[in-house]
């Protein structure tokens, strides 16, 4: 009851008024307020006034954090998705071949060759340029794909089910690092690996998951966070945990290929990333389509545009130009080789992982400038733009506080704080592959245009 004694006061605004309280020895917390993003004041007023907003956001974020993703199977895209011949899925918001960046073009060429839709690179490029090949975002098909995110019918996908709400989401299998299709490489070694994945890895994993039964990804992610992963740029612990879970079943299911399969998984610290992405996708999808909610349910990039989707705005994309990541580069590569931001892997940040859980991953804090304090600051700042703290995903270094989860476009506009996104960096030129890893800032207009749409 406020009249019962000297009040503890939150002050926001004029500093002299806060000072006057401190002179009176009153307990104060001072908000470091600053004006909202330029041009958003009116839309903010309308969105905040929407009588549905509060309950809608509570419901949406409760569904997001309440999802219980299980790895239920590994199956071919042709079996799981409506993916007719001549159609590919890709990362990010919709895009045409004409506007596609190097790595996406490279991956599409690779997919044409993999599916034997074209005999060679030139023919593939011609077919793609002619518009005969249909391109659709993964997100429109309940799927997500890292980097270029190209999914073609023969590829094997993780099938992740939400035990709480009954949703399902898919993500391709991770090829490893270096010259790989998802970074736009399509040379012979890339296709050879994909064919091995097609004929050996996929079937073996499928049988192994069948034997092992559904694997609780929520528990595995929670554990990996406590082992130093943030589940976007660091998946070493989670990959180890998954490998431990799968290994006996892999041996039982396919003794002849077991060592190859296990060696492949063990040799790729990011093998778990794709499972984490599908888990994130099924969780964020549970929060979709709540009328009046300003919660972000997808952030994704296609190498040209960065797009977001918002719970209360259906499947509309709100986009801005994708930024070029800033980070650390492999070998002789430098910033000039970097492609603009690409991939659906920002679904991890959307669900409270990745950059949002940076404080959990001191081993890779140098992506954010070199010190543990910067990683902690990155995570802490994300509490300012999110609606909840994840009940299961916790950060030991923050006293087991739940990760910041549920980006609110209204809070982004109010604070001017953009989501912190960890990412790999693809080479600009088709066929190059990965050139580095680092951080990227999303374009503000993706969030402000969504806010304007909510304001109606």
């Amino acid at each position: 009851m406020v009249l019962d004694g000297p009040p503890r006061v939150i002050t926001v605004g004029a500093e002299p008024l806060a000072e006057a309280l401190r002179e009176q020895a009153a307990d104060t917390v001072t908000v470091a307020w600053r004006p909202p993003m330029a041009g958003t004041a009116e839309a903010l007023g309308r969105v905040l006034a929407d009588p549905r907003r509060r309950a809608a956001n509570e419901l949406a974020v409760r569904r997001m954090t309440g999802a219980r993703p299980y790895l239920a199977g590994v199956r071919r895209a042709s079996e799981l998705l409506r993916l007719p011949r001549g159609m590919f899925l890709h990362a990010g918001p919709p895009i045409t071949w004409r506007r596609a960046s190097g790595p996406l073009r490279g991956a599409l060429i690779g997919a044409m060759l993999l599916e034997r839709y074209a005999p060679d690179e030139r023919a593939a490029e011609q077919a793609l340029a002619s518009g005969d090949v249909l391109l659709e975002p993964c997100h429109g098909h309940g799927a997500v794909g890292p980097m270029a995110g190209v999914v073609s019918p023969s590829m094997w996908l993780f099938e992740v089910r939400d035990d709480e709400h009954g949703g399902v989401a898919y993500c391709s299998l991770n090829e490893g690092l270096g010259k790989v299709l998802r970074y736009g490489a399509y040379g012979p070694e890339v296709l050879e690996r994909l064919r091995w994945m097609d004929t050996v890895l996929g079937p073996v994993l499928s049988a192994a998951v069948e034997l092992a039964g559904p694997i609780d990804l929520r528990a595995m992610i929670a554990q990996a966070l406590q082992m130093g992963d943030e589940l976007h740029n660091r998946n070493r612990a989670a990959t180890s945990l998954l490998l431990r879970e799968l290994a006996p079943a892999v041996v039982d299911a396919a003794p002849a290929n077991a060592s190859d399969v296990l060696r492949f998984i063990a040799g790729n610290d990011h093998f778990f990333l794709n499972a984490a992405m599908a888990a994130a996708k099924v969780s964020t999808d549970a929060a979709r389509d709540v009328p009046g909610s300003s919660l972000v349910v997808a952030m994704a990039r296609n190498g040209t545009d960065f797009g977001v989707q918002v719970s209360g705005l259906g499947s509309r994309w709100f986009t801005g130009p994708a930024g070029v990541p800033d980070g650390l580069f492999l070998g002789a590569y430098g910033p000039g080789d970097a492609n603009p931001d690409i991939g659906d892997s920002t679904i991890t940040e959307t669900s409270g992982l990745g950059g949002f859980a940076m404080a959990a991953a001191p081993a890779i804090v140098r992506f954010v400038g070199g010190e543990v304090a910067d990683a902690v600051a990155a995570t802490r700042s994300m509490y300012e733009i999110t609606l909840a703290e994840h009940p299961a995903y916790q950060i030991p270094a923050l006293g087991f506080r739940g990760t910041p989860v549920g980006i609110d476009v209204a809070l982004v506009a109010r604070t001017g704080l953009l989501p912190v996104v960890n990412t790999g960096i693809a080479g600009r030129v088709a066929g190059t592959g990965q050139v580095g890893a680092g951080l990227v800032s999303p374009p503000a207009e993706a969030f402000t245009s969504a806010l304007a749409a909510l304001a109606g």
Partner: protein
Amino acid sequence: MGDAVFVRRGVYHDSVTLMRAGAGLPGAEVAVVAMATQLNLGLARDLGFDVPAADPGDLLVALRGDDVAGAAEELDRRLTERAPPGRESEQPPRTTRSAARSPADLVLVSVPGEHAFAEALDAVEAGLPVMIFSDGVPVEQERLLKERADERGVLVMGPDCGTAVIGGVGLGFANVLRPGPVGVVAASGTGAQQVTCLLDLAGVGVSHVLGVGGRDLSAEIGGRSTVRALRMLDDDPATELIVLISKPPSPEVAAAVREVAGALRTPVVTAVLGGDADLTSAAEEALRALGVPVPDWPSWTALGDVADSSGDGIGDGTGGGRALVGVYSGGTLCAEAAAVAGRGEFTDYGDDVYTRARAHPMIDPTLRLEALRKVPPDAVVLMDVVLGHGADPDPAAALAPAIAASPATVVVALVGTEGDPQGLRRQAETLRAAGAAVFASNARAARFAATTASRPPSPAPDSGPGAPGVAAPALGAPGAARLDPGPGIPGAAAHGSGSGPGSGSAPGGVWPGSVTEVS
């Protein structure tokens, strides 16, 4: 240009550390610094390095450039360098919503009006009462806030709520008031300050002062905050009497509020501004309701007999020859003075029009100083000076030279208490020394100004520059000053509402312990 390739057996660093350490090595154009995985070995080979056999648990360093030895040395230095200690990770909250994660009882919002809604709504949604100091909040946002606040059972004070005192803590522009039995619900900030400061001068303290905002009693808002504040004070054991300072309400709202007030256990004294009652008489009515004698309100003047503050000489409003100019910082005080004086040109420099791009005149005197310079030489200028937390730490310091330099006659309504950081007496003395006539009661100041203006200008000793000297002739002026009679002074009851000439005829010695402002 040369190559250097070496493998450090069993040396492990995470890939980020290595990428960072290998970036921009002086003397190297190409550097592969990585754990010796097949992938990284292949990468180095692709770059043309001659790579020896190695395990993934080994560190591979492949350098090419003009000074590979220097580069290798620098690399080693970077890898062995200890990370600097972590910085302080405390980050302040960026929204009220975020701040409300820590325990709190109340939110004070003073961001620009167009942005106040978001912060205030955060408070309401967190179940916290909120004082909105900001003005310029659209009325539909106020209505929405107060509707939501009703759902959550929390009080919204404001918008444009200038003052509040809760649990002894002053918020916004707030005077330091002694604790006591009077709870105030006020639609006007400076109105509440005038009433509570006068009560304080009479030795009566307050329990809480709850502002509701100037529009609360309009038909659009429906008195939601007024009703809630009344009920809160009724439930407060420290409150024995409620003073409701209202702006002219819409008739339906007035009826509803009257009904609520009538059903309370605590007696309510209501003062409707713009009606017959002025703030001083409201304070006096409250004192009478408590059975406390009404004192003679203090004044400090070098200008002559303060009996003129009775208003007897105001006349019919067409007045004498002198212009009367009101230069105010408080809207309610300005309106009250205009009403009491019955004529003159009054400007409220605290109005939105003047505060859009600058601080409130209670903090920044610039505009009022300019106005003071521009008045006609024979004018009577009436102005308010409001003390307390949040206000100018020494308003008299800025005003005194301007008053002294002004050929006009300056009358000041000084709203404050001795407990205020600026000190009522100190401010009064400085202003008087500069040649102003200073009154604790705005109504009396207005009467005095109007009376003075209705008379032809006299060659007053205070006119013209060099005024600091005027303090001396004023020293012996009858009724020059009295302050703080203290509670329960015998005989003080004789000075009733609108106390008349008695004030002038009872110098110094009536009240034991009273102070004549001569030192």
